[in-house]
């Protein structure tokens, strides 16, 4: 069977991201998964055990300052070389900012079609995408070149399948045009130990009704009790209650967790666009007419400052 290249997405803090395991699981349906690690020196070594656990038969690594010290262009160049050499059945990347950007450059280099935000991919290359804020389902296909696809997190259930991959270091030869955008600093902003927003199976979000930044502690407390991530509506972010990288909505992150809890969020279309494909939705809002209740599988009409602490207490009791 042909190789399927899976471009690994990982973080320094947590290692291999869940979406990578989803891609490896999907890749096994399409061919033989090979993981591609594009990162700093030693990156592949640190990730190889996890990648093997989910079925990577081979790991290609391109590492070092030449790859990691510039914005995505060197990664696309290395990847294009690899694609030309191994002629894979498909190339999968995460539907993250960086994954889409690498895929964008790869598409131009190879004159190849590209499909983003894919939630399912058949063996014949037919992809399923969710469009227009979750209101439309689209089936599409790359018609020039190989299936070059970015997978939306939380689309595939990751299933382990042990393999013991060897790491092949790739020769890195990047040109001057790949080194035009230099990363001079990477700054981590405090997030604690919560799962990444787009990958979390539980997301608890706060809106304007949370009232101020300090009150977001309530949202965080409930999220932590459920092992979830914290999100925020645009109204909450614009009011300065919570940082922008946690914004869920049309302008912000799209999330599709098992459980989404909306606290003090009215459910404007801006917000619904980012969360309405969640499996189960729960809402707490004092306005019984809030549109969020049209989506919610369970809704509590009430004061979140009473309901949420009580819910937190009840969860503690049951633990």
């Amino acid at each position, binding site marked *: 069977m042909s190789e399927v290249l899976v471009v690994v997405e990982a*973080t320094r803090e947590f290692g291999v991201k869940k979406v990578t395991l989803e891609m490896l699981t999907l890749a096994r349906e399409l061919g033989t998964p090979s993981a591609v690690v594009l990162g700093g020196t030693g990156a592949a070594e640190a990730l190889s055990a996890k990648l093997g656990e989910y079925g990577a038969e081979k790991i290609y690594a391109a590492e070092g300052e030449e790859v990691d010290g510039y*914005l*995505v*262009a060197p990664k*696309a160049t290395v990847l294009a070389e690899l694609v030309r050499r191994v002629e894979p059945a498909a190339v999968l990347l995460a539907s993250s*900012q960086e994954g*889409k*950007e690498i895929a*964008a*450059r790869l*598409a*131009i280099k190879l*004159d*190849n*079609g*590209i499909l*983003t935000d894919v939630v399912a991919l058949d063996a014949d290359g037919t992809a399923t995408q*969710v*469009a*227009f804020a979750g209101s*439309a389902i*689209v*089936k*599409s*296909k790359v*018609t020039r*070149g190989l299936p070059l696809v970015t997978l939306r997190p939380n689309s595939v259930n990751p299933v382990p399948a042990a393999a013991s991959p060897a790491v092949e270091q790739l020769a890195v030869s990047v040109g001057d045009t790949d080194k035009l*955008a*230099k990363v001079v*600093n*990477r700054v981590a*902003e405090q997030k604690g130990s919560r799962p990444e927003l787009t990958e979390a199976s539980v997301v608890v979000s706060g809106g304007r009704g949370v009232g101020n930044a300090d009150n977001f502690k309530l949202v965080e407390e409930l999220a932590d009790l*459920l092992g979830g991530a914290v999100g925020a509506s645009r109204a909450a972010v614009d009011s300065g209650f919570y940082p*922008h*990288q946690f914004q869920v909505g049309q*302008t912000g992150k799209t999330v599709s967790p098992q*459980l989404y809890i909306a606290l003090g969020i009215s459910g404007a*279309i*801006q917000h619904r666009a980012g969360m309405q*494909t969640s499996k*189960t*939705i*729960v809402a707490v809002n004092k306005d*019984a007419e809030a549109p969020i*209740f*049209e*989506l*919610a*599988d*369970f809704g*509590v*009409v*009430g*004061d979140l400052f*009473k309901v949420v602490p009580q*819910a*937190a*207490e009840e*969860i503690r009791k049951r*633990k």
Partner: protein
Amino acid sequence: MNIVVLVKQVPDSGADRNLRSDDNTVDRGSANNVINEMDEYAIEEALKIKEAHGGEVTILTMGPDRATESIRKALSMGPDKAVHVVDDALHGSCAVTTSKVLAAALGTLDADLVICGAESTDGRVQVMPHMIAERLGVAALTGARKLTVDGGTLTIERQTEEGYEVVTAATPAVVSVWDTINEPRYPSFKGIMAAKKKPVQTLSLGDLGVAPAEVGFEGATSAVLEHSKRPPRSGGAKVTDEGDGGVKLVEFLATEKFV
């Protein structure tokens, strides 16, 4: 500094949006068509740079005739002029071919800086800045929440999952911005009147030396095979808190095995 802002006309994300049943493209006929929201932040950023450093701001749009409305609206915020790439053969173009056309149009404009929104609200594909930069062989600084211009050096804070990256490049470059970067101005009455007289140059594929077969459905590198409406969610149980709302909420979570 010669700045070009990419502006896309999109169906209003606040209303019902559809794909056409005949050719699977975005139904623009039935939609309320507006400037892609993120592009307003790009325009604002360009105007601020012009105000601080001098230069000229040009709007570049690829789209059908009716995109003229959005171009005038963009001009009413303050840019100097616009270029509209319009050609019937463009209908059905994919991202890869769109980037070819935009890169060709930028080739006629000699820009020091190209600014665009990080993504459009219709496709949310987020690939255009890097595709264009790849074709032009210039730097791409994408996902900016802050942009600093110091002579010919550009520095951005790029929003990432874990925090941000500081990325720097020399002009010419493509920069994409998120809506955290500024607060776009509202067009003034004077601006709206002035926009009516600002030059809008139209370019056809012939003007750009791009063959019709390279774009549109014929040149597309991907195809939509079919589409359907996702069934709307229906609300479930709704209880009013009578002192036990929190407990009831957790009871629901327990039945769904979340606690």
